[in-house]
């Protein structure tokens, strides 16, 4: 079996992350319960006429893909695998509301086409003229991890050399509105530094795209090696510690071998207990979190994956993401854990290469 490397990254998030020469140098502050992506100049990457017709999810996906391909110094990949919880949700909203408001008349196809979940993956294939394998995973908070798992399977078995893998989700007004009603979004405005002090249910919703070139050949642009990713549809809080230990053991590691634990805490009082369990399990390990910077969305964990990649490559952990006061001299072995509302859990294990 071949080793698999993260050879490049491309990120658009609620922080200014599209410039790969920076690493959270300046933080975009907010005081809100819904945060939007910091946009690059899209026309630097996509012809303006085409960009105007594209949904934001498509634009974010194409631009981060292009950033990742450029950094990896390649023009083509063998496969494109996308994770998205909701796809281009604004177009879905637009099409449903048009059906209702206009009583099924005067409809145009564009929002319907763009609402198809695989539209981002399809558009990237069109943009790159990539006729290879093309999958889209749409399973809530493990959409991105499913894509990584699929890529790992192909790269380890040498069925492909370079695979573009990413997670993308956009915010939609109506979706935001209804998720506020059912308390999936926090009632109060939050600033990045007080997210985990919040005593309410729900999360701060966000959006973004994070694409990566994964390869089974190490290069001078490599960030880290992906050792493993594992997902669980359900997991009881009582079983989490044991599963984490079992997952590490599969790779001959124990709790003492981790240099960093990156957790998906989103400040929801009803569900952050899962993360607290792991914080206790790894109480001697430096820990980090990121959803105060990215917001919560189905593929927010792809931002966590970006963060882990940057930490390992730069061997530095920005102050703003530290979850505990523990320091370490090196970031060699990093474990990520994420879940959303107590379901769809994932472990991702990365190693310095």
């Amino acid at each position, binding site marked *: 079996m071949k080793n698999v490397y993260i050879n490049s990254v491309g990120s658009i998030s609620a922080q200014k992350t599209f410039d790969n020469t920076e690493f959270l140098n300046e933080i975009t502050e907010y005081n809100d319960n819904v945060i939007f992506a910091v946009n690059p100049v899209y026309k630097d990457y996509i012809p303006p006429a085409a960009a105007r017709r594209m949904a934001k999810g498509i634009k974010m996906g194409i631009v981060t893909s292009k950033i990742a391909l450029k950094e990896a110094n390649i023009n083509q990949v063998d496969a494109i695998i996308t994770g998205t919880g909701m796809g281009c949700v604004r177009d879905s909203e637009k099409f449903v509301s048009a059906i*209702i408001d206009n009583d099924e008349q005067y409809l145009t196809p564009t929002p319907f086409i763009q*609402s*198809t979940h*695989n539209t981002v993956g399809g558009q990237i294939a069109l943009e790159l003229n990539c006729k290879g394998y093309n999958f889209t995973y*749409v399973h809530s908070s493990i959409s991105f991890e499913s894509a990584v798992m699929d890529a790992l399977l192909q790269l380890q*078995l040498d069925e492909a050399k370079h695979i573009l893998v990413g997670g993308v989700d956009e915010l939609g007004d109506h979706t935001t509105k209804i998720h506020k009603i059912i308390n999936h979004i926090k009632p109060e405005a939050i600033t990045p530094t007080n997210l985990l002090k919040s005593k309410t249910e729900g999360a701060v919703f966000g959006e973004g795209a994070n694409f990566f070139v994964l390869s089974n050949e190490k290069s001078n642009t490599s960030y880290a090696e992906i050792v493993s990713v594992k997902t669980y549809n359900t997991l009881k809080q009582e079983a989490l510690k044991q599963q984490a230990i079992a997952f590490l053991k599969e790779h001959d590691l124990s709790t003492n071998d981790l240099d960093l634990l990156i957790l998906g805490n989103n400040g929801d009082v009803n569900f952050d207990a899962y993360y607290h369990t792991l914080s206790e399990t790894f109480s001697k390990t430096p820990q980090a979190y990121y959803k105060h910077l990215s917001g919560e969305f189905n593929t927010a964990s792809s931002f966590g994956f970006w963060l882990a990649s940057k930490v390992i490559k730069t061997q530095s952990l920005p102050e703003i993401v530290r979850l505990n006061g523990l320091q370490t001299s090196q970031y060699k072995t990093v474990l990520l854990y994420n879940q959303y509302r107590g379901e769809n859990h994932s472990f991702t294990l990365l190693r310095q290469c």
Partner: protein
Amino acid sequence: MGKGVAITGMGIISAIGNNVAENYQSLINAQKGISRVKKINTNHVNDIMVGEIAFTNTEMEQQLQLPKTNNYSRTALLGALAAKEAFKNARIKDVNQYKTGLISATSVGGMDMTEKYFYDYLENPETQKYIEGHHAGDSTQKIAEQLGIKESLVTTISTACSSAANAIMLGARLIKAGKLDRVVVGGSDCLSKFTINGFKTLMILSDTYSTPFDDNRKGLNLGEAAAFLVLESDKVVEAENKPVLAYVKGYGNANDAFHQTASSDHGDGATLAMEQALKVAGYAPSDIDYINAHGTATGNNDLSEGRAIIRVFGNHVPDFSSTKAYTGHTLAAAGAIEAVYSVLALQNNIIYPNLNFKTQMKEFNITPQLTLKEKELKTVLSNSLGFGGNCSTVIFSKEQ
């Protein structure tokens, strides 16, 4: 690697039957399930024909013994019924005995409820339980719960009309790689105003019965359905002495990279997918006995797919037919529906007639199988082609 991927159970619900046996009876009796839409209140009722399942949501909730407070979309209800039949057919008693995963496919997800309660959500607390059921992974989570699959690999694929074929492909790869011992694969999609109006804007819905591969074809009939297959490793089959229905022998996935919704004129993606599937199976084109075509009856699909078939099979195109005229195009579920039909074809040595065909297409001289044909079948190739250029092929075989 090189391990077998056995199909040991299957379940289906479609417009031509509520289980595998009923579907087979309709197929061999040339009974289509296409009618005017009854359960969806749409202005297009007289402009379109659909493959609708007779059960109401309430009837299915009762069959599944769900509490009144449930928030199952119709996609989840159909999926749960079909997956449970597959589990029963595979004689699975203890789900935890082997590492069991679930890979489902859907394009509609919970859209049926979202379009019904879109504005109601803002005012009516009773409808708000369905908000969480909108995203595509929700129906899969519910199917896993119905099957008792816990702490395991459960995920959802959405690549438009090729989704379920891709679920089968991923499941087969996971078994081959030894990541799972058993995996339930398939897909579910219900009818919705969203898809009816979406395909209407694309002007590819027929106002009458769809006529795959006919020169005068007018477009597709939408359908709703769910189907699941149980795939098991050699290890499980041996240990449990399981009867094997058929094997997943080959698979291929490629992207047409031509247009967001249309297929390329010469079916580049479909050609690549079929070639790759043959390669994985270790077959020559002449090893294929029957092609269950995607055959949606749109002008674009049938031309592009037909040309791709000729590119792969040359002057020796095997018997082929589309079963879309029976069920309608069931979108993300289609690949699983047609996988069940492919396995039934192998088991019974039967090729289904391509219904409603009258006029030979001008662009080529291949003609689908028009009558029920009995023939010893060893292999069936099934195509699924979708929006976003997604093209998939799965090959089923009688022998490992």
